[in-house]
C-alpha cells in the first residue's frame, strides 16, 4: 500500500496556511520516529487549533487537543511506547507546508516547547506553572 500524504489548507489572518500530514510519522515499528495514533484529520485539527491560537515561534509550533473533559488527548506514541500528548509542528524556511509529529520532550531537548508557548498555555489555564517548569526541565508531568 503506497504511503499517502494528506494535504490541507485554511485561511488565517488573510493568509493561506498549508499543512501536510506525512506518512513518515505513521509507520508502526519505525525505530527513529514517534507515531501519530489519531487520524490524519485529527492531526490537522490539532495543527489548525495550534496555529489559530498563535502557539507559534518563528517556524515552529506546539499544540495539543483537549477532549470533552478538557483533558489532554493522547496524540501519539514514542519510541518506547510512551503516550505523547504534545505535538510539534515545523515549516522548513523554503517550504510552504507545515508538518508535524507527536513530540517527546522528555526524550529530546529539541522537542521542548518554546517558553513563549508554555507561558501562553499557563495564562490560558491549560497547564499550571508547575507543569510549565517540569516541561522546561524535561521532567514528567501528568498532563
Amino acid at each position, binding site marked *: 500500500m503506497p504511503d499517502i500524504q494528506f494535504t490541507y489548507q485554511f485561511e488565517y489572518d488573510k493568509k493561506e496556511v498549508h499543512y501536510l500530514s506525512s506518512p513518515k510519522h505513521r509507520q508502526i515499528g519505525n525505530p527513529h520516529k514517534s507515531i501519530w495514533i489519531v487520524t490524519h484529520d485529527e492531526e490537522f485539527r490539532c495543527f489548525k487549533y495550534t496555529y489559530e491560537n498563535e502557539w507559534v515561534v518563528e517556524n515552529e509550533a506546539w499544540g495539543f487537543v483537549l477532549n470533552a473533559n478538557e483533558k489532554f488527548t493522547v496524540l501519539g506514541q514514542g519510541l518506547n511506547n510512551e503516550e505523547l500528548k504534545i505535538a510539534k509542528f515545523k515549516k522548513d524556511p523554503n517550504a510552504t507546508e507545515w508538518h508535524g509529529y507527536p513530540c517527546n520532550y522528555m526524550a529530546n531537548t529539541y522537542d*521542548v516547547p518554546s517558553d513563549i508557548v508554555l507561558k501562553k498555555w499557563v495564562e490560558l489555564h491549560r497547564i499550571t506553572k508547575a507543569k510549565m517548569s517540569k516541561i522546561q526541565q524535561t521532567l514528567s508531568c501528568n498532563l
Partner: protein
Amino acid sequence: MQPLKITLFGDYYDCQLYRGRLYLWTFDGDLRIYDWDQVIDKVIEHNGDWLTFLYGYKDGRYLYGSKTKRLFEDDEFKEIVLRRYSSTCRRKHFLEEKDIEDCIIGVQPAPSSALPVDTEIYNNILYYSTEKGLFKATAHRPRSEKYKVSTKALKLWDARILSIIANDYPQMALSAGSDGLYEYRPGSNYNYAFLKEIEPQLYQVSEKYSLFSNYIFESIFSSSHNGNSYISMFKLDRDKNSYFHRVFEKEIEENAFIDDFKGDAILSWGIRDKVYQATGNKVRVIKYSKWKENSHADRLNSFGTFNLKSNSRLIKGSAATFGNIMEYEDKLLVMMSNNEKFVLPEEVTRWRIYPRSINYLNQLHVILEDRVEFISFNHDSYVDQMSKLNGIEYYIPTSTKARGMCSDYIEEW
C-alpha cells in the same frame, strides 16, 4: 521535630538565597532581590521568637558549630530550644509582598527577560539557563548599583541546559538532556585530559543522557529516567610538583553501582557521600567515599535501605544534611535524617536547597502556585552523622583555599 515554615504569597517561578540576599523570579518577568535578614526580622517582629528564627533562617551553621554544639547537647538547654521550636512551628508565619516592601534591595527585569530553566549563584556570579542557552551575569553587586544583577549577561553556550550545579570547588555540572553531561570550570587554565573541550573551559563529560546531576565529592552523579543513571568517576593525580589534579577516570553505569543490583531502579540521585536508588517500593542507600591516594577500596558500598511507596511518579531527587528531598508529579516529600517525614501535598513549581552554604544549609525553599514556602529543618544536629540513611553527612571544607578559585586540590581532599 517538624520544620519551621514561613509563607510568602505571590506569583513566583524561581528563587535563590545567597550571601544574605533572596532572589525571587516572578512569573511576569521581574527579579526581586530582598535583604534576607530584614525579611526574617519582619517575621520575628510579629512572632517574637528571635532564637528559633536566628538559627532556623539566618545562621544555620550554629546548629552544628563546635562552639555551640556542647550547648545544644546540654539537656536543659536542649529542652528549652525544643520547646520554643515546637511552639514556633505551631504558629503560622505569613507574609505578603507589601509586608516586606522595605526589605527590597532591587527590582529589575529578569536576566535575558526569560523565565529560567535553572539557576545557580557561585562566587558572586549568577549562572542561568534558558531555551536560548547558558548565561552568566555578575550578581551580588553593591547596593549603590542600579541593577544588583548585571543586565549585560554573557552567553557561555547555546545548548539547552536542564540543570546547573556548582561544587565546592570552581566546577559546575551541566546536564543537557539528550546532549549529555558537561562540566564548566570557570577561571581554570588546567587542560582536562580525556575530555573534549566544547567551549572555553566547558568540557563534555559524557554523551549519555543527563536529566540532572550533582557532585559526589570529586565525581559527578548523573541522573536519568528509567534506571539509566551513571557516575562519571574522577580521581586525583599528582604532578611532578606534588600538586593534585583532578582527572577523569571512568564511567560507571547504574547496574554496576553495587553487586546485587536487580535492574529495578526507577530514579537515582547522588550528592556528596550518598547515592540513592529508588525502586517501586524502597530506596537503596549507597555510601560514596572520597578518592584516596593509594587506596584500592571500592568507593561505592551498600549502606542500607528504607521503604518508600507512592501512587504517583517520582521525578527528581536530591539530599541535604537534613534529609532526602523527593519530588513527585503531585507532591514533595522530605525523608528527614531522623526518619520523620515531611510532605507538601501539592504540585511543585521549583524547590531549592543550599548544601554548599554555611548559613542556609538547613533550608528548603519551595515555589508553589500562589506562594513560596521557606522551610527550615533544625533536627539534624541531633542525629548521628555517620549512620544516618537520609541526608548527606554534615561537612565543611577544611580550608578556605578550597572555597576559592583554586584549580588544584589540596592534600586534605
